[in-house]
């Protein structure tokens, strides 16, 4: 990058921004196509199914594959350009194979300041890869995250889009070691970690039965409620009128 002639135009947009159509590998099957049609059936207009269909493509192919793009286009009756336009807009869609476990480190302002920058540097070092890369064994991929809506648990990491709250360098290393060793690891307020592909399948709207795992809320979420309970504070009592309006109950 530093070698370019200063008179040459250098685009700010990298060439890796398009779908890789040279990698023909795919696991899209008749069952996948059938599931795509199930997704379509959820919506009043077929095209609304495109985002979940692309999540499904990732769960099957480990990336947005050219075959997956073609399947979406064919089922929805739109062009592959239209599908590609959508697939390249959203950051969760990966153009190259993601790892079995997808690691995210938040470095938006607050997390960055509180330790996110250190955690990201450490993860690069530990995994031996840069942002948006996958380890050669396919085990891990790494991403610099924008705010993941868990600022009260900063600094935050994500694994397969499960929360890893209030991280420290020690916890982060332990997390990677345990995942690498194939040990069971749980989200700090979620389920046991599965894989990035299984997560993508849930996002496509096919539940994996793990909703009942994990707590109701994480510790930071409960701080205000804890203080209120300690001091006996509560919302005003509801007025004593019948809870059910006349004729409202059968």
């Amino acid at each position: 990058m530093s070698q370019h002639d200063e008179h040459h135009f250098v685009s700010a947009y990298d060439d890796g921004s398009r779908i890789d159509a040279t990698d023909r590998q795919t696991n899209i099957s008749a069952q996948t196509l059938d599931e795509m049609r199930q997704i379509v059936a959820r919506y009043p207009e077929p095209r609304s199914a495109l985002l979940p269909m692309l999540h499904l493509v990732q769960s099957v192919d480990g990336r947005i594959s050219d075959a997956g793009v073609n399947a979406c286009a064919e089922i929805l009756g739109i062009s592959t350009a239209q599908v590609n336009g959508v697939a390249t807009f959203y950051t969760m869609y990966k153009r190259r194979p993601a790892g079995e476990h997808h690691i995210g480190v938040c470095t938006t302002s607050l997390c960055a300041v509180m330790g996110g920058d250190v955690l990201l540097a450490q993860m690069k070092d530990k995994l031996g890869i840069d942002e948006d890369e996958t380890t050669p064994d396919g085990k891990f991929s790494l991403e610099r995250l924008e705010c993941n809506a868990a600022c009260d648990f900063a600094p935050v990491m994500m694994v397969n889009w499960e929360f890893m709250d209030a991280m420290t360098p020690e916890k982060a290393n332990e997390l990677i070691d345990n995942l690498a060793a194939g040990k069971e690891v749980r989200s700090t307020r979620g389920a046991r970690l599965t894989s990035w592909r299984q997560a993508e399948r849930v996002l496509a709207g096919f539940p994996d039965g793990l909703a009942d795992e994990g707590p109701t809320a994480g510790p930071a979420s409960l701080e205000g409620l804890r203080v209120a309970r300690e001091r006996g504070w509560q919302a005003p009592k509801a007025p004593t009128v019948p809870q059910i309006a006349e004729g409202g109950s059968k």
Partner: protein
Amino acid sequence: MNVDILTPSLTESWDQPEAWKLANYEARGGYQAARKALAMAPTDVITLVKDSGLRGRGGAGFPTGVKWSFIPQTNPKPKYLVINCDESEPGTCKDIPMLMATPHTLVEGIIISCFAVNAHNAFIYVRGEVLHVIRRLQQAVAEAYQAGYLGKGILDTGYDLDIVVHAGAGAYICGEETALLDSLEGRRGQPRLRPPFPAVAGLYASPTVVNNAESIASVPSIVANGADWYKSMGTEKSAGPTIYSLSGHITRPGQYEAPLGTTFRTLLDLAGGIRAGHQLKFFTPGGSSTPILTPDHLDVPLDYEGVAAAGSILGTKALQTYDETVSVVRTTLRYTEFYKHESCGKCTPCREGSWWLVQTLRNLEAGRGSEGDVDKLLDVCDNVSMKSFCTLADGFVANITSSIKYFRDEFEAGYHTPAWELFPYEKSIYFPYERETLIVNEVADK
């Protein structure tokens, strides 16, 4: 009436085991409000919500009942309700724990709201990066179908309602309501030019209400307890309890539900203050898109009017808090990099402006700035502000201009001195939670 300092309403059951399950929600009185509402006339439900003074909790603060009344009932097209759970504004972290803990509160709110506006289809648009929240929502909707709260002829009435949980795919801009609608239609999430507004031509060009998750989750309690109960909390123009999200260099960051109009001083005190040995430097009242405030604003009532009078916006009540170790140039750069990354690219001032602002701010952070760079930042901001389809650019302009307003010296120091020399970054690192977490649970331990 004396009202307590904290008023847990939405957060009330977050410490209960398995609060997300239907049986537990029903045991707490869940779905009684939906029964009550479906026995009312839809217009009476709208009037009730108008009378409660409920205003949108997603940032704009528009009165929810008024928004519903804009849906043209004479339009023969289907009406839609779309719930905005794309929570991605830096600092904002209230809807995610709410939906993880009590997804049925939202489902019940949707039933009442759809009935009020005569919609038979609702969509819950959740950002994709929160897997477990999506699991809980999917399960809650499935449970509600099984129990007859959703589907054909719900609650023994002739009213039909379907809800789809829809996962996004990583784009902050989809929290903007028209971009969200385009995304939900299977397109790139890019804002639309208004008018027409969604109430007239929203999803599939049909009348559509787009509401924040917290707003709709507040509706069941209003129906159950009445408008006067709701108005007994908060201020005259900013009614009700709300979730304040405290994060950053605070002893006990977290979610604090209190009446609107509570001051940051009160909340900070309850949260144990700024971390030991440090002082407050600045904070965002409602996420990164709202102008920053300083210790001079600790006594500002955090309601729509109070924060506006202090020159900022209540926004999502996301109080990102930074102590004196933090370089404002660094945070401003990071926020601007966020917006540059998330700009959808549709409007030139936003797409190009964010790129150029990042270049200038990077130079200032590294102490490589040039004389006049601060004025250049302000000039670019002036050229960007209010010139795009949506308010994303106005968000980064607000952060930059307010940061310069209060800390101009720090930006000018960037002409010669790196920010990390003035504010050694390691001093800002803070891991507030030393408590054991559940990260490592080896199979052998069980």
